[in-house]
């Protein structure tokens, strides 16, 4: 959890992310020159392959081997230039090379992006705990928002785990366009219900936080500032409706995520526990000596 100076003084909660669907991947930097060069190289290589084959023939009695060589070179060249299948094979090799680079950097970006979101979520748990500790709000307010944040974290874990597997499949299938596209389609299909629900869940969570914070602010300058929260400044029926709605959405998410989760037992001395953040917070919150 990172806690900036602003974060220490404010509980700033904003709708700021949208977990993207991996797009269908296409050739990148496909310049005419590069393509033409690849094409020429491929023709030369193919012609040479044919000539090497000619050299492997037993001696010919009726033909001059150099004449045959010239003739064969011309025939192969002319034939390849007219052959759409050959052209496609070069395109696919280029496509596969680009895909490798593209897919690899794309996934690196995704994993980094998710790590940033995790840090943000940890910080948001602290915001809601701080709000709760400065309030007379019911326990359900705290636990429901915490659960909503932590289910987002679970989703990221499940998502990362699955796309690591998908990344491998995509890379292995990079020169099989149909299979590649099918993998992208499959991915988009399974992520769609998650992202739709996650977006709704996040919006409800932030609305609940905003309603509580804004209703306890006398002026707009006070919004997101750490302050005392009084339930009598709120319509508790509205709060309860928000909580109920959020609970329902959390349940739906849990049902969706459950099959994608791995079993892990809790141990009190688990060093890799999610929010190992207190040390950092304590250090950041500390006033510099002297």
């Amino acid at each position, binding site marked *: 959890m990172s806690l900036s100076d602003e974060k220490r003084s404010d509980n700033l909660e904003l709708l700021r992310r949208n977990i993207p669907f991996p797009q269908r991947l296409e050739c990148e930097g496909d310049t005419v020159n590069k393509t033409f060069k690849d094409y020429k190289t491929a023709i030369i290589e193919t012609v040479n392959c044919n000539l090497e084959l000619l050299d492997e023939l037993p001696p010919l009695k009726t033909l001059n081997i150099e004449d045959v060589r010239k003739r064969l070179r011309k025939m192969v060249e002319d034939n390849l230039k007219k052959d759409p299948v050959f052209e496609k094979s070069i395109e696919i090799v280029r496509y596969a090379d680009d895909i490798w680079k593209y897919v690899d950097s794309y996934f690196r970006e995704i994993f980094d992006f998710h790590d940033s979101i995790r840090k943000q979520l940890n910080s948001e*748990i602290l915001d809601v*705990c701080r709000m709760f500790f400065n309030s007379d709000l019911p326990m359900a307010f*705290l636990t429901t928002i915490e659960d909503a944040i932590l289910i987002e974290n679970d989703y990221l874990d499940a998502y990362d785990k699955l796309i690591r597997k998908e990344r491998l499949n995509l890379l292995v299938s990079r020169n099989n366009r149909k299979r590649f596209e099918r993998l992208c389609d499959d991915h988009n299909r399974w992520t769609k219900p998650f992202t739709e629900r996650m977006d709704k869940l996040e919006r409800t969570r932030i609305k609940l936080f905003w309603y509580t914070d804004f209703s306890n602010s006398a002026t707009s300058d006070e919004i997101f500032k750490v302050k005392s929260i009084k339930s009598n400044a709120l319509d508790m029926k509205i709060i309860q409706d928000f909580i109920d709605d959020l609970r329902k959405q959390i349940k739906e998410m849990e049902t969706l995520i459950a099959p994608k989760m791995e079993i892990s*037992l*809790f141990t*009190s001395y688990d060093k890799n526990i999610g*929010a190992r953040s207190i040390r950092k917070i304590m250090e950041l919150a500390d006033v510099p000596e002297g």
Partner: protein
Amino acid sequence: MSFGQFEGFFLDTCILLPHPLESMMQACSDFLKEAASQCIISSSVKTEALDLIEYSHNAIVSFIHDPLKSYLESKGVKELSNRDGKIIADFFSEQKAQLRKLHYTRSNIQNEMLGAVENYVASQLHSLKDGKKIPIGIFLPVLAAELAVVKHKMEAPFKGGIRCEEIKPSDSVVSEVVLCAIMSNDQDALHLASALHYQFKCNKWVIFVTTDQKDILTKEAELREIFLQCSTPEWALDYRMDATKKKAPLEHVQDIKSYTTKQNQILGAMKKAVKT
């Protein structure tokens, strides 16, 4: 005639919850590594576990929210440094006993949660550099945030990774389990009845896996008599081997020439329940 009809291991709540003994924790963990794909939790186990975790979490948040805050304020502590460990230690020591009395549950969850938080606070407080101070206004919410993560991790195995079956055993089956095995705990009886109900409904053997020596494993013979095999996690896989050699449950009971009184009672209740 069918042999080798084994459906899976029904897990008791305690298998997936923290244990005070590391050896027990290890046994559960090893068993799950080996057999997670064959494990099942009944809806009653899931509900009981999530309720216990929620209850314990709420009790400890209240404990951080009010008594700890007041205690620190009464000591005039507005900030904490690595020299204030003793103040926190005294508080945990005094309050833990009271908390256990006030919020007694039959599980170890509350102690584990509190232990995890105490351990966390101690290690982090000690690692602070000399002279660094943390306002209580940040310290307490951070504890609550840590507790939320602990709670979530405890809930995780009940929410995903293990197949959960919605089972509602009839009252008569639950009552017969209580009477036949002399069960003192209603929740245990419900979990056992769920496993038994599922076993006869699917006509495949199940094994009920638990570490509960006091209430369940001491009644192993009585439960076996009414056709439910119980086991500790260490030996559950061996019992599975045994189950695969037997005829399917319905055929097995048909082969018995004369039933004991308990068998008559449980089969009578089960017949009605499975038919409905």
